[in-house]
């Protein structure tokens, strides 16, 4: 009867989705295996580059996911915050402290820059939340979304004035060179990226799961009014979440600027989109998901860009956004997310 046919249709849909998913996975593994056989050591190096990109994306993706988790807003301006973080770091290290070489003094300044950029980006993000998004919390969804796009453009303007319209290159204070692991090169910059990122991710996990603020965040994310009734200052909790997300973007900005040595006003837009895709891939609102998604995207992108059998770098964005679109179509909840339906 009609009812059973409805169920049959549902079942058929699931089957189609599964088959499609498996087909994509099979295709990808075939591509990977083919490459692995063709150039094993190159494969490992490229994967490593992908991985280090991935953790960078993870830092940005976490900002999207934290904010989305708590107020269901895609904070479009988040990627641009990362760009500002990079610019700030470049100026801080090279222009204000005149460090352009790898030296103990340079490393000290790098550490100072790390702390300053976290505060800088956190402050900007809190400022944006306070003056742009807070007023629109109860408005129709389109309004904060358009506002976020507008804020993104305004930050890009700041970047444009600060950095100029072209790319700027900078010297890194991080040691160049690499360690060897068998026949695989491990660049020091990559190792440092890991050394900075992993403790920060651990600290974030600690804050969200163990502290009072984290508890307030999780409660606010689930039910704002009920949280108020528990005595939680919802506005302050949301501001705190923006501060966390902002500081992570700042770290990403610093790492990017120091490991790649460049800044550009539109970097935030490009990387922000990739990071957002990562957050969606993992299931937006889910912290572990964001990290997982980012590492996957980083790997895919790195492998596509660097492997002998691949589309090459000029198709990088297309590959990432195709993943985004396919994901939206077949699994909008992401890898680790849950689907939520509207209440009436």
């Amino acid at each position, binding site marked *: 009867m*009609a*009812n059973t046919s*409805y169920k049959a249709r549902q079942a058929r849909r699931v089957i189609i989705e599964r088959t499609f998913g498996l087909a994509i996975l099979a295709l990808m593994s075939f591509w990977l295996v083919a490459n692995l056989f063709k150039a094993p050591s190159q494969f490992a190096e490229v994967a490593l580059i992908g991985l280090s990109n991935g953790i960078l994306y993870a830092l940005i993706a976490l900002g999207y996911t934290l904010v989305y988790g708590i107020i269901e807003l895609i904070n479009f301006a988040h990627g641009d915050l990362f760009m500002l973080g990079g610019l700030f770091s470049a100026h801080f290290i090279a222009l204000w402290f005149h460090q352009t070489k790898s030296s103990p003094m340079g490393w000290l300044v790098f550490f100072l820059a790390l702390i300053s950029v976290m505060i800088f980006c956190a402050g900007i993000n809190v400022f944006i939340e306070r003056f742009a998004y807070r007023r629109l919390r109860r408005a129709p969804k389109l309004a904060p979304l358009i506002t976020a796009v507008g804020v993104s453009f305004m930050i890009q303007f700041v970047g444009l004035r600060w950095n100029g319209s072209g790319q700027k290159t900078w010297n890194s204070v991080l040691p160049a060179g690499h360690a060897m692991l068998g026949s695989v090169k491990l660049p020091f910059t990559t190792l440092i990226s890991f050394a900075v990122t992993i403790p920060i991710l651990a600290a974030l996990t600690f804050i969200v799961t163990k502290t009072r603020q984290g508890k307030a965040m999780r409660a606010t994310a689930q039910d704002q009014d009920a949280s108020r009734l528990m005595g939680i200052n919802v506005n302050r909790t949301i501001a705190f979440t923006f501060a966390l997300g902002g500081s992570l973007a700042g770290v990403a900005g610093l790492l990017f600027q120091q490991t790649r040595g460049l800044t550009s006003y539109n970097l935030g837009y490009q990387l922000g989109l990739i990071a957002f895709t990562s957050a969606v891939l993992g299931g937006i609102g889910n912290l572990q998901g964001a990290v997982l998604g980012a590492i996957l995207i980083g790997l895919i992108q790195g492998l596509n860009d660097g492997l002998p059998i691949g589309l090459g770098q000029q198709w990088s964005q297309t590959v990432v956004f195709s993943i985004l679109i396919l994901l939206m179509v077949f699994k909008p909840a992401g890898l680790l997310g849950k689907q939520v339906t509207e209440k009436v």
Partner: protein
Amino acid sequence: MSSILSAENITVEFGGLVAVNDVSFDIPEKGIVSLIGPNGAGKTTFFNILTGLYKPTSGHVMYDGSEITALTPHKIASAGVARTFQNIRLFGSMTAEENVMVAMHSHLKASLSATILGLPSQRREEKAAREEARALLEFVGIGKTANEFARNLSYGDQRRLEVARALALRPKVLLLDEPTAGMNPQESAVFVEFVHRIRDEKGISILLIEHDMAVVMKVSERITVLDRGEKIAEGTPAEIKSNPRVIEAYLGKGVGAGH
């Protein structure tokens, strides 16, 4: 009397929790029946099943001789099952008249190109629709507000506009979800008259979810009582009023009475 809309053995589960458990009941043609029960008993869930918004885990919904369980909400609505909402859901920035005309969507035939070219057939159709909308607004008693934005109407007028909009679907069944919420007894009394008028003048069967017992008892020909997702009683107002199970579950047995 044959039934126009009937639910057969409906069960709904949300993630393991049973919201509605094996409930059957039907709305007789040109009848006025009510669904009552404490808050959270599953009444609105049931409405959402009847209108296709939720799909039951098992069971069937039959309308006018055919099964509609699996149809999408807009198909069920176009077929003639209209509803109002517990929390008024009008199209705020459209005029009252436009709100009503939205519900005529499925009756209007004009194609995109006919609309763009403004063909005579389309103009005629629009004009007829507009007249029908005005007539419906008159029918519910808010004819003067045709050109006002829905969000600027008073609470009572918004409730009336919701009914007018539902009637524009030319329904055979009208589902009213707590229509007298927020009305005082005088307004509610007027409303009871109004429900009878809808049935008598338009020949529409009516199902009400209602909390105001005075309204329910006055308006319904038959009452179904839900409690925690199960049907616990069914019958005429007099039967329901004296049913001990109903009194216990809904009207409250008065814990510790005699303090």
